[in-house]
């Protein structure tokens, strides 16, 4: 059972082409990647108000699923 947690993100961070959102697991002392951590149930929520094309996000895989 995964314990629930919450953490702050910087507010109003605008992502432009080529920028990445990276989910990772790091060591508290070194900041290095900790191997062996598996990620699942990943979701990234975005505001597309300023996007030239609000019907697509990403190219390769993303599928838009409105949540509101």
């Amino acid at each position, binding site marked *: *059972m*995964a*314990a*629930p*947690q*919450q*953490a*702050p*993100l910087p*507010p*109003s*961070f*605008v*992502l*432009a*082409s*080529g*920028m*990445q*959102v*990276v*989910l*990772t*697991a*790091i*060591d508290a002392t070194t900041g290095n*990647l*900790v*191997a*062996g*951590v*598996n*990620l*699942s*149930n*990943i*979701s*990234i*929520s*975005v*505001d*597309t*108000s*300023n*996007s*030239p*094309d609000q019907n*697509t*996000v*990403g*190219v*390769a*895989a*993303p*599928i*838009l*699923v*409105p*949540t*509101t």
Partner: protein
Amino acid sequence: MAVETLEIASLPSGGAPISYTVSGDQVFDLIGVRAVFDGTGAGGNFLPCVQIKSAAGHILSQSIGSSVTAGGSADVSFAPFLRSTGGGGGTGTISDITSTDGSVTITNPTGPTTDLSAHGIQFAAGYYNSNSLTVGSGSSANFHINHVFGATPLNLATPFAPTIVTTGVYAFTVDIQSTTNLAAGRSSDAVLSLNTPQVTSIESYVTGPTGGALVAFGLAGTSLMSAGDNLTVSMGNFDTVNVTYQIIAMTVQRLT
């Protein structure tokens, strides 16, 4: 323009790190990130982390959650204005602070020092009694004072003349009883002497009733006392025979 909150779905599961790259002409605001971090096979304790990288691969922002022990898992939501659920300062309520010497000092290494030894603070009382004291005819003697329970405002290194530990205004009550009869018409004098620079004596003078009887003496008073000032409780016996007395209850309470 209306806000369009959308979810980027179908991101694959797998070993960290996993990244999503903004492609094409997309420009949007990041609202939230959520994932389950399964550390069953982790090589050590870890911090769940979301990094935002520039197109050049530089880390622009790094948001971290609370430490997860190797073998543990966490379902982490990252969003603006959330407060971390772990680490940082403690929370809770201080319900009671007890001090035995009548003052409390709270020090924040990065902030001001607050001395709470001020008016409005209620100090606990110290409760005392004495050994039995037999006083010869025409003589006087001091009680040997013992601490029973409660605060310890008195230093009993010299139990016949204990000293005040901390400067302040103190209230005193002393209940003394004779344990042998006081003869009719014969008197005893109980005295509480507060040996500050201005000596204060509080007395209770009792004369034996017809037929003689056990008698009681009550003393009460307040005085400013400085640390090191001593006090004594004594009995003067004006009977023709020895009389024995004892402090049944004595309280010493700092008021300010």
